[in-house]
């Protein structure tokens, strides 16, 4: 009745009702894959544990606390860990970070959001396929190259325009930093603007609005949470960035309001001093403490951004 039974003849067919509950190889493979996926979680936990482990003495060891403690961090405005009387004032570092990040965001936000709006709302199709790769190429430039460019070229350029006292300063580093975060903000903002349903834009146009009205009143407002998330992530990236500021900011831990003064950021401090520090010393612990703070800061930033993106998705799905 049935044609040649290749499969059953070859005794390859498994019984329909199997005595074993599972096939061994399938089971093993599934378990291996399952266990491997824990690496990501493990990684985060390990970073947490081992960075905090070396930072903890600052908070709990009485020996270390004599030299550097939370109170001491903020009671002096001098950061001078290598001296007869080591002082660990964090304030200049925090202010330094703030200055550089502020400059970078000031430039990056309008440029990246503006370009994102142009790309998703106004650009002709041919140009659109050109813009995204260009931004991705910018994203692909290593930060050490951007730092190099800031150090060798931009610093002199700005110096000739602004005639600042210090060639390497917060402004220089901030501009270079903005090059690094423009792609971050751009891609998230552009994605958000693109996911605004076409039907909404068509409805707006059908009511007599023109393209830019639709872009600003409808697309931008609907996509705002996504744009915001992009900005938040850009902020996180800016705070954590090391090489650019290390090379372009002058690395002087001075406290001033002038953006054309040299600064020291938290991340650059770690990079600059970790090589010389004695393992287990108070200085060592402090550097890890700064690192731990950066880690916590970016954790918060990331969670915030995810929350905001979640809001956007629920909004688009009509649940808010």
């Amino acid at each position, binding site marked *: *009745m*049935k044609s040649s039974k*290749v*499969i059953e003849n070859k005794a390859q*067919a498994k019984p*329909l009702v*199997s005595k074993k509950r599972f096939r061994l190889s399938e089971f093993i493979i599934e378990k291996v894959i399952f266990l491997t996926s824990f690496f990501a979680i493990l990684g985060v936990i390990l970073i947490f544990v081992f960075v905090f482990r070396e930072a903890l003495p600052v908070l709990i060891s009485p020996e270390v606390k004599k030299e550097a403690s939370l109170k001491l961090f903020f009671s002096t405005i001098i950061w001078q860990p290598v001296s007869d009387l080591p002082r660990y004032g964090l304030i200049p570092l925090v202010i330094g970070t703030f200055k550089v990040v502020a400059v970078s965001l000031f430039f990056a936000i309008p440029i990246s959001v503006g370009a994102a709006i142009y790309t998703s709302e106004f650009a002709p199709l041919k140009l659109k396929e050109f813009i995204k790769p260009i931004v991705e190429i910018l994203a692909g430039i290593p930060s050490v190259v951007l730092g190099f460019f800031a150090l060798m070229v931009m610093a002199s350029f700005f110096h000739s325009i602004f005639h600042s006292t210090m060639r390497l300063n917060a402004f220089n580093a901030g501009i270079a930093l903005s090059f690094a975060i423009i792609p971050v903000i751009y891609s998230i903002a552009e994605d958000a603007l693109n996911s605004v349903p076409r039907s909404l834009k068509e409805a707006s146009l059908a009511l007599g609005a023109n393209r830019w009205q639709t872009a600003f009143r409808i697309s931008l407002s609907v996509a705002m949470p996504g744009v915001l998330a992009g900005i938040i992530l850009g902020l996180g990236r800016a705070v954590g960035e090391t090489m650019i500021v290390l090379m372009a900011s002058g690395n002087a831990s001075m406290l001033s309001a002038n953006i054309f003064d040299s600064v020291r950021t938290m991340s650059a401090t770690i990079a600059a001093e970790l090589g010389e520090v004695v393992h287990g010393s108070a200085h060592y612990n402090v550097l890890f403490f700064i690192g731990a703070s950066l880690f916590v800061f970016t954790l918060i930033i990331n969670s915030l951004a995810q929350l905001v993106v979640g809001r956007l998705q629920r909004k688009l799905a009509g649940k808010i």
Partner: protein
Amino acid sequence: MREETEAKIEPKIPEISGKKIESFTPEILVEKLNFYYGKIQALKDISIGVQENQITAFIGPSGCGKSTFLRCLNRMNDLIPGARSSGKVFLDGVDIYSRGIELSELRRKVGMVFQKSNPFPKSIFENVSYGLRIQGIGDQNILEETVERTLKDAALWDEVKDKLDQSALKLSGGQQQRVCIARALAVEPEVLLMDEPASALDPISTAKIEELIQDLKKNYTIVIVTHNMQQAARISDYTGFFFMGELVEFDQTSKIFTNPRDKKTEDYVTGRFG
């Protein structure tokens, strides 16, 4: 021509696990099948038998549960999160929902052809031989012989015999569907489930597929789901009418279309609603 069966077929078949009734020799026997998507009940107390080597068609308006029921027969519904069922489905006397069932073997025995043809982005040859390869059969001779045989069974061999290495995606819609049929036949199923097998095709391809299905019943038990009543009337031997998750009536096709017992059935087949 359809054979005349003497025995009366009851819509609700009493619980006779694995025992055959007179001249009705069901390959598949379903007992009080209920199916839920989460909280929504899609199938209510379905009891039915699928006759060996005949074509059984399920008809009904959209959303009535016929496709859901089809997918219960090879447990493809297991893939849907939140899906659950109760009741029994006997294949050759074995309840496929009982513990210890080797799912991949079940799906080999109860093959499926989908509404929208879904050949793999591989060559025609690789598509059709796929099922054998996963059973561990690598012998080139056996593969070639099977591919030729099943493509002939699917009435496609002459059209593709010179281009077996070409991508299956380059074929027309009707040809792709026949590749999928050949592919399903290659694993030597006992039952072939077909979900609206010709709905995406033009009339000429549809006619070819219908002719093919009628040929296939010599060797396979066929179950098709169709929203096209005339198709069911044309090619099937038995028909089941589904409505809102219930099996309203099940009988020989000729009876369903000329002298249905239930008013709803009559309304549907005469086109009063649909």
